[in-house]
């Protein structure tokens, strides 16, 4: 357990009438640093909340943005909702798979990218859209995945979820 986790847990807990409300904020915070939530992390967080590990595991596994397996430095969520699909998101996904040499759900060997489907990202006017580490990339050309991969490299986009 990183020493600061305890501090964070205390700060989050102070903010809510029910201590368990601080659980998701802490998981977000830790994942932002670590990239994912390992079994050890789950164990440590349970300790910090004096909760059974089963509880924390059960909560974390419910939410699709908590990663229980290691993911790439950049998590690429391609929206496959209807409006994006009508604008070619399937094609965009194919092209990204091809370009990155992985299938949806996988991570590149160099640990740079994880490619995932997202359900409607509430940006249907800009379809097709992609989130890279939860930052929006809108109005993409399905045939030009490189544009996305290049632009997502810019340093100000390096912020983690």
């Amino acid at each position: 357990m990183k020493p600061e986790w305890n501090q964070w847990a205390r700060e989050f807990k102070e903010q809510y009438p029910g201590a368990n409300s601080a659980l998701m904020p802490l998981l977000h915070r830790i994942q932002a640093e670590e990239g994912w939530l390992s079994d050890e992390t789950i164990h440590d967080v349970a300790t910090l909340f004096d909760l059974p590990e089963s509880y924390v595991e059960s909560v974390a596994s419910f939410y699709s943005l908590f990663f229980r397996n290691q993911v790439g430095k950049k998590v690429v969520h391609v929206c496959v909702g209807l409006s994006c699909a009508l604008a070619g998101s399937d094609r965009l996904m194919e092209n990204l798979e091809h370009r990155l040499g992985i299938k949806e759900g996988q991570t590149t060997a160099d640990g740079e990218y994880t490619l995932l489907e997202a359900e409607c990202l509430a940006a249907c006017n800009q379809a097709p859209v992609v989130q890279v580490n939860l930052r929006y990339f809108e109005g993409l050309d399905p045939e030009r995945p490189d544009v996305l991969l290049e632009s997502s490299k810019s340093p100000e986009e390096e912020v983690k979820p």
Partner: protein
Amino acid sequence: MSQKYYLLRNREVADIDRMDVYLAHGGYQALKTALTDYKPEELVDLVKKSGLRGRGGAGFPTGMKWGFLPNDGRKRYLVVNSDEAEPGTYKDREIIEKNPHQLVEGIIISSYATKAREAYIYCRGEFLFGAEQLQRAVSEAYAEGFLGENILGSGFSVDLKVYRGAGAYICGEESALLESLEGRRGNPRLKPPFPAIAGLYGGPTVVNNVETITNVPAIVTYGAEWYTSMGTAKSPGVKIFSVSGRVSRPDNYEIPLATPLRSLIDDYAGGVLPGHKIKAVIPGGSSVPLLLPDKLDTPLDYESVLQAGSMLGSGGCIVLDDSVCMVGATARLVKFYREESCGKCTPCREGTYWMTDVLDRIERGQGTEEDLDTLMDIADNIGGKCFCPLGDASLGVLVSAMKFFRDEFEAHVREHACPMGAKLYDTVNH
């Protein structure tokens, strides 16, 4: 088209997400008016008179909802639902990203009206930027003394926190949202008790949608009569419609209720793409039944859309033109519900799984005539039998598509392929 904005004021005023700009354009005046000129009960009355209805989907009268809170001295909560994840709906996101102060102002006024001591904005996990924007607005509001203890010397105090979900559509359902906010899996709760009686941390709680609350400062500023001067008697006021799909200018449009659907599509969203015709419209987010072109003159108010055979819902309007395969579109939407079923109840969990598989098969050209009947029977076995409304929501488009476009489904079966050569199916079921 030039128009006046009450909710999407960011369209008129650049940088209105900044406190100084918002203040310079009359921001937080409504708050001051509310705190000085109104008692809480009078505000509830004002909102009742305005006829404002919930914009989260169900269209429940907001003032009436506020009136349900029991007067038993327990600490009250106001929770703002910013989980917006219904396919085709993206109005709340624009508000929180671009005009967050108006929402914050609305929350403070609504908290005063409902005597809530604590307020939360539950933000969809994917809305990282939106949550940051809200957090910044909230901090600025604290700095100005609009939040916290004894706001503007009125004696009223409220705290507001921004909370981030982590990816689960079901957390938009209010009781699942409360579960999530309390640090649990987002499974819906048994009702009764309803949130007004036992909501967040067991206390009396109001849950309202982002857009609903963003209306409140405008109603305080311009009055209930102003609000009822728009729309119809039962559906007064303005509403944001998110238009997407096969139109020239997909975007959010803030228009008076009862504006005809045709006008929204043609006048605002620029109509369908050249050379195409409208095939069907999903007028209120992915959960509602399709409307055919013969219903394009339906006024967009709760009653008229219901009358026309669909629902106004969240106002996410997805336009499907003649290039769209209805089977593919339906399959895509049903798959959404399968991905997002919380898994608690049997019909929702298994039924959406099954329907997705059958639709996928039909789309691949491997379906049978019998599948079509099975599909309708599965829908019948889900309908009205789930723990929460998500199960029913998965049926809106499917059932109406099967009714209006059964020939397309049959063609897939007969020709063992999509007659339109559409490629929608490629990612379904991967």
